[in-house]
């Protein structure tokens, strides 16, 4: 079964550093998403991406964050100047056009900011 792949599975970074979280969505999917889940809290929407641009973003997704699809397969989330409160599990998801059933999550990257 097709999977959404995220790397790394766990990243530890120093406060103030920049991190890039990587995702490889399912190949025929057109909509891409980033969500985060702070430990013990609910999964929160960050941003959706379609047709090579951001289609929607939440209040969490401020200037510290950016997304990119640098080539035909990768979808990245960059977090600049990380803060302790950025520590969370970050999930990438993708879905194909017109098929809400096909919404698939990756296994996540656990980001720990120290």
């Amino acid at each position, binding site marked *: 079964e097709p999977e*959404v792949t995220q790397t790394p599975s766990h990243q530890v970074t120093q406060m103030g550093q920049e991190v890039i979280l990587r995702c490889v969505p399912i190949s025929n999917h057109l909509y891409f998403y980033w969500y985060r889940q702070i430990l013990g809290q609910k*999964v929160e*929407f960050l941003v*959706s991406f379609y047709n090579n641009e951001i*289609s929607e973003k939440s209040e969490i997704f401020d200037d510290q964050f950016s997304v990119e699809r640098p080539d035909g397969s990768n979808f990245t989330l960059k977090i600049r100047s990380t803060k302790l409160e950025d520590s969370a*599990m970050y999930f990438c998801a993708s879905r194909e056009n017109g098929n*809400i*059933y096909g919404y698939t999550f*990756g*296994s996540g990257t656990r980001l720990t900011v120290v």
Partner: protein
Amino acid sequence: EDKVVQSPLSLVVHEGDTVTLNCSYEVTNFRSLLWYKQEKKAPTFLFMLTSSGIEKKSGRLSSILDKKELFSILNITATQTGDSAVYLCAIMNYGGSQGNLIFGKGTKLSVKP
């Protein structure tokens, strides 16, 4: 503000028990309600509900939506230890979104042998 509330937040049962998990919501432009199971990492899809009163079933799991009262339930019969997980309810709405989901906090189910 859109809101999804799940109850209970946690639940401990014994194998063989039947459980009912609840999800209520207040959202604008409701499109669908989705249930996910989250074990260690990624949420995995269980059901999507769009119409009221139509039960969806998959093995021992079933779910139904009430769009008038704005809630859904997820039932698990004859629970097994493998059902232990966090069960997430999420809403997808229309409007400007491209299908982003609004999640509840989840119900943590622990099934004891």
